[in-house]
Structures are given as C-alpha cells and as structure tokens.
C-alpha cells in the first residue's frame, strides 16, 4: 500500500474539486490519502451555517469576505461574480458529476484524512467550531511526516 499527500491551498471551486477527485480516486485504489488544507483552502472546510464565536474586528472582516463553505466557492476562471460558478454547478449536476460537498463526504467515508492548518486558521481567524466535523488540526510537521511516507505529493 502506498500513500498520497495533497496540499490544498486554493479556495477555488474548480481546484478544490480537482484535488478531491484525485483524493477519492487514490482512496479507491487502496491508498492512504492525506489532504492538508491551508490558507484559502480552509474555506472549503467551513460549515455553511454561521457559528457564533468570539472574533476580533479584523477576523470578522475576513470571515465576511471569504466564502463560507464548499457551496459558496467561486471558479478560478470565468467566475463573473459567482455566475460562472452557478452555471458550472448546473452543468455538472446535469452531467451527474458529484458536487463538492458530495466529494468531501465520499472522501471522508473512504478514510481520507483531512487536516486543517492551525497557523492559517489563526491568521484568518477561523475557529475549529467553524469547520466541518471529522477533520484533524495540525501544522507543517504533521504534513511533512505524512509526505515523507507518500509517493505522490500535490500542491493545489
């Protein structure tokens, strides 16, 4: 058995999907998969609902400006203020491509390990309670430890 590690840096819908399709595929090939979500990528793991937590003014601002969860992400290209993302989601639904939330659920069911970068969380004022359940919280050393064991490592 081999393992794969993915650094999920992007908060774009298309890139988040690409990473999760690879993660699901790798898990279905019998591999251990670790996804390390950092910086903008953390937005993918935010819960859709607003969670009441104490935040500074700047942290609140960040929270308002960034997409709250997998349903709210935009495309990296041709987003047109969200219209592009809506159209893309419509097309994907029609073509029966799994949605981003479905891909996350599937990956979790297959045992893909989700790690949220605690340093990025601190910088962006994102609290543990605001992220989806079933994920781990760690730093770069944990990711590097996993990457050492892996034979494919992607930065998305």
């Amino acid at each position, binding site marked *: 058995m081999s393992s794969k590690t993915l650094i999920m840096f992007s908060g774009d819908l298309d890139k988040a999907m690409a990473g999760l*399709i690879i993660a*699901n*595929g790798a*898990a*279905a*090939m*019998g591999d251990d998969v670790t996804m390390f979500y950092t910086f903008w990528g953390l937005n993918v793991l935010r819960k859709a609902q607003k969670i009441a937590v104490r935040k500074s003014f700047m942290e609140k601002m960040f929270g308002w400006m960034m997409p709250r969860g997998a349903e709210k992400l935009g495309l990296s290209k041709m987003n047109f203020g969200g219209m592009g993302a809506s159209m893309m989601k419509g097309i994907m639904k029609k*073509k*029966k*491509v*799994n949605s981003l939330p479905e891909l996350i659920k*599937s990956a979790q069911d*297959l045992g893909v390990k989700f790690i949220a970068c605690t340093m990025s969380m601190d910088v962006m004022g994102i609290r543990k309670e605001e992220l989806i359940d079933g994920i781990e919280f760690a730093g770069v050393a944990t990711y590097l430890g996993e990457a050492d064991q892996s034979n494919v490592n992607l930065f998305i």
Partner: protein
Amino acid sequence: MTEKFINARGLQCPGPVVELFKVAKASQSGDVLTIEVTDSGFKKDIAAWCKKTGNELVSLVEEDGVTKAVIRKG
C-alpha cells in the same frame, strides 16, 4: 465464490472506481464482480485499478456506450 453486480451507469469519474472499491473491500478472494459503466474513461481506468489493487480483470467489453468489466478479486 460469490458473484456481485454493480450498476455504475451514469456515474462520472471517480464514481465507478469508488463504488467498485467499496464492493471489492467487502468481498472475498475469488469473488467475481461485474460492473457496468457509461464513463468513457473507465475502459483505461479499470486496467490501472486492477493492477494497482491486485485484482484480476477477467473481461472488458463495450457495447452501445456501456463498458462492462468482470473482475475477480485477488
């Protein structure tokens, strides 16, 4: 030996291999799994999946846009 059938028609990548993996995981060595898929990439994917997971691809046929693969669990 048990025979199992998976209808993965309409599922897009990576749906078919995910479904196949789940069923294979719950199967015994020697079990025969038949899967039907409409995703056109599956024809190549199934060979790679079998090689990687140590299962045997017994047959692979395509008819009217449906790929039918028979796999024996290794």
